[in-house]
């Protein structure tokens, strides 16, 4: 049984005029124990919406249309937000939203924010026990517990704050961690330090599986075991990291891989792929393949026939004509 | 605009705006249906409210309702004029200091701090008392405006200096736009909603200042304002006589108008600053 399953999930936004904008259309995937599953996509593709939906926290104007999300076999849809917060969030699944390191309350010390996490999920833990646990956990992952825990967030560097966020999110040893662009606003050196810590936590068994969302494919190449590429609210290709990075089949995936610039000898001559245009407006009904308007390999049929995601070998591809 | 529609949906805004519109009606539309006469003695001094004179008479026997309406008009006039002057001076100083930085900022900040430290009310008293004859409503508004602009200047300066980091200012500079052009087209529009809120508060503050200065007898020389009514009621010991109609309506109106402005300001803040929305 997969540790985290998303089953044909459809999510929509409701505008003030009552229009429904389908933000996520029929996404399915299963996260296995011990796996890092990467979701790649560019701005506006719906990956952040998907992730918010995966947590069962539907804050208007976001609403679920249909589909199911199961954590260790148990569905988390149709539960009250309070129920989700106490029983699911933090405990079974932990989420690190985008820009989390800038959302730490500036008037509270790290140790108080961390203590909140424990107190809101476990009743009757003594202050001493909390203190000991925090010390132990921060030391385990290589952070200087004495200084960091007693600091205010504003006095820490961005990288340090993000590491605190990750530590606090995983205090209760969740089974799954969902990270939305955890290193996008950090510079490369800090990024490496944060990811190193994440791997260290995986090795030490603090959590076992991860969903990693980012637009940076080179990062996913080193972090993820499997990758799903998202475009206009749908997965267009899902496969192992090796398959997606080095042998993409779907035209959008191929375009993304082709657009990467690498500082490698011989790569200087390789002209990066460029696609004009922008993703389709999801507020309007779309006929045919969503990528057809920009696809370099589009045929007349592509504009008429909706493409379903199909299983090709041991991967999934959303393109009837992909070789 | 979208923002305006959002405002109309906010209950607090409707409440504040509603109160304010009611007072406007009282000041400007009510006189069409009720004869306003602040000169004629229509009864004995401090006659209590009756069917013919809803708020009784003042210490000279003049109809209180007429006095209240006239006083309201004057107070609103002073409040608006003082608000315009204070907001105008404060905004100009604020955006210039915020944008220029450097020594211009330092000088303007120094001047602002000077004006803050000197209690504006004392200045108001000193200037008012030295002008024995020529104290008109406009002059009082002018004095209030010229002494209470500091708050606008500081707030606008803070907003302006946070804007200059935006790239569109840098781009305007490399387009060759001069300082005045940048202030007018690239900074002021971004601050308009904020300046408007500041303006609302300055009006309220102007009404209060006028009431205070008039209450202590240094108000306009030959006009009736809500503050002068309070002054008259104090001078003639209306409180001791139990003539509540001589000061409660005036004080009440001041409170309602100022409160309405504060409520409007708070509701606008919720709409203009999305982070405050629930």
């Amino acid at each position: 049984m997969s540790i985290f399953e998303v089953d044909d999930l459809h999510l929509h936004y409701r505008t003030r005029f009552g229009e429904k904008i389908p933000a996520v259309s029929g996404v399915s995937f299963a996260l296995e124990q011990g796996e890092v599953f990467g979701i790649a996509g560019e701005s506006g593709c719906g990956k952040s919406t998907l992730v918010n939906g995966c947590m069962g926290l539907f804050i208007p104007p976001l609403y679920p249309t249909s589909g199911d999300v199961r954590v260790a076999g148990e569905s988390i849809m149709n539960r009250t937000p309070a129920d989700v917060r106490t029983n699911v969030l933090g405990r079974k699944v932990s989420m690190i939203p985008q820009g989390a390191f800038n959302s730490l309350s500036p008037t509270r010390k790290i140790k108080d924010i961390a203590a909140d996490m424990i107190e809101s999920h476990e009743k009757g833990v003594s202050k001493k026990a909390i203190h000991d646990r925090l010390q132990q956990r921060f030391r385990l992952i290589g952070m200087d517990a004495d200084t960091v825990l007693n600091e205010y967030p504003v006095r820490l560097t961005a990288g340090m704050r993000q590491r605190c966020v990750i530590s606090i999110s995983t205090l209760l040893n969740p089974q799954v961690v969902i990270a939305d662009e955890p290193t996008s606003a950090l510079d490369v050196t800090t990024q490496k330090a944060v990811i190193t810590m994440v791997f260290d936590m995986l090795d030490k068994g603090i959590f076992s599986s991860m969903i990693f969302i980012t637009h940076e494919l080179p990062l996913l190449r080193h972090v993820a075991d499997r990758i799903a590429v998202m475009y206009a609210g749908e997965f267009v290709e899902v496969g192992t990291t090796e398959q997606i990075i080095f042998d993409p089949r779907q035209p959008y995936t191929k375009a993304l891989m082709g657009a990467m610039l690498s500082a490698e000898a011989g790569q200087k001559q390789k002209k990066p792929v460029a696609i004009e245009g922008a993703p389709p407006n999801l507020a309007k009904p779309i006929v045919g393949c969503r990528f057809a308007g920009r696809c370099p390999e589009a045929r007349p049929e592509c504009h008429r026939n909706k493409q379903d995601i199909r299983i090709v070998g041991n991967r999934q591809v959303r393109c009837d004509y992909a070789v | 605009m979208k923002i305006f529609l959002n405002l109309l949906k906010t209950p607090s805004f409707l409440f504040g705006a509603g109160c304010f519109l009611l007072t406007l009606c009282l000041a400007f539309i009510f006189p069409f249906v009720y004869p306003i006469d602040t000169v004629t003695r229509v009864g004995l001094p401090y006659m209590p409210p009756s069917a013919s004179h809803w708020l009784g008479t003042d210490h000279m026997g003049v109809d209180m309702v007429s006095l209240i309406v006239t006083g309201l008009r004057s107070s609103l006039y002073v409040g608006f004029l003082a608000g315009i002057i204070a907001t105008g001076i404060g905004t100009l100083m604020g955006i210039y200091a915020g944008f220029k930085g450097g020594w211009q900022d330092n000088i303007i900040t120094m001047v602002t701090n000077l004006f803050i430290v000197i209690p504006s009310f004392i200045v108001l008293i000193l200037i008012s008392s030295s002008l024995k004859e020529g104290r008109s409503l406009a002059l009082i508004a002018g004095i209030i405006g010229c002494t209470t602009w500091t708050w606008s200047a500081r707030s606008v300066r803070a907003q302006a200096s946070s804007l200059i980091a935006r790239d569109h200012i840098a781009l305007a500079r490399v387009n060759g736009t001069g300082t005045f052009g940048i202030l007018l087209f690239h900074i002021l529009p971004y601050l308009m909603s904020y300046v408007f809120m500041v303006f609302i508060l300055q009006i309220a503050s102007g009404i209060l200042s006028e009431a205070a200065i008039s209450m202590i007898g240094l108000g306009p020389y030959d006009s009736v304002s809500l503050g002068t009514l309070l002054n008259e009621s104090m001078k003639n010991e209306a409180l001791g006589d139990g003539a509540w109609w001589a000061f409660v309506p005036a004080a009440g109106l001041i409170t309602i108008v100022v409160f309405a402005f504060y409520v409007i300001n708070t509701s606008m803040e919720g709409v203009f600053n999305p982070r405050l929305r629930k």
Partner: protein
Amino acid sequence: MRSEVDVFDAQDVTCIFGHGKKAVTAIDRVSFTIADQEIVSLVGGSGCGKSVLAKIMLGLLHPNSGRFLYKGNDITDQRRHWREVQPVFQDPFSCFNQFFTIRSQLRDSFGILEQKPSKQEMEERIDQALLAVNIKPPEIEGKYPFELSGGQMQRMLLARIFIIRPKILIADEPTSMVDACVRANILDYLMKLKQELKMTIVFITHDIGLAYYVSDRLFIMHQGRIVEQGAPDEVTLRPQNVHTVQLLADIPDIHKPWILR
């Protein structure tokens, strides 16, 4: 034909922000030259000083000590400087005023030119600039910045350069806020600009892959100093300085190992 005089000549330039104990040395005794029609990239992590150096090149900041020369002279007249040196910034939405239409803001760019052309000529030049970045003029007719996509807005910044026709372009992270698929288009337009206008381009970026692809020379910066400079192959394959090595090792690249698991 290339000019003999170096476009930019930095001589021991230092730039300090703040005073006393809180003073931060943003640029620390930096010296370099940039030749006519060269494409140079300043690469480094955050806090390395590349953006400050860009502002100095644009004449928006002056060094505290040392000299920074443009074509052999100090930068004294900002307006004259901006006729020849123009920027492209990172965030295309923050670059435009949200209260005015895009076209009117493109028209504002004529303000820096020495002689303002006639009204008709201005409109023609704007149309030409738009076509040069593959936008048909009716597409932006009456539109405001928030109505276009990031890629389109970035192209507006480039259209502005086509209008002004400067000699030097300072591009500060021109593609970091643009989708990967559209990035190569932006680079194409930049190269087109360079060839047509015989421009010198200075790229500021943290993306060494981009710098490698696009530049004639790379300058690696670290904490206010230029720690290494040279041809792209030299710097990336045979890095001499420890900070360059660190930077190359820290950037995740699909072909190279990154973190040992």
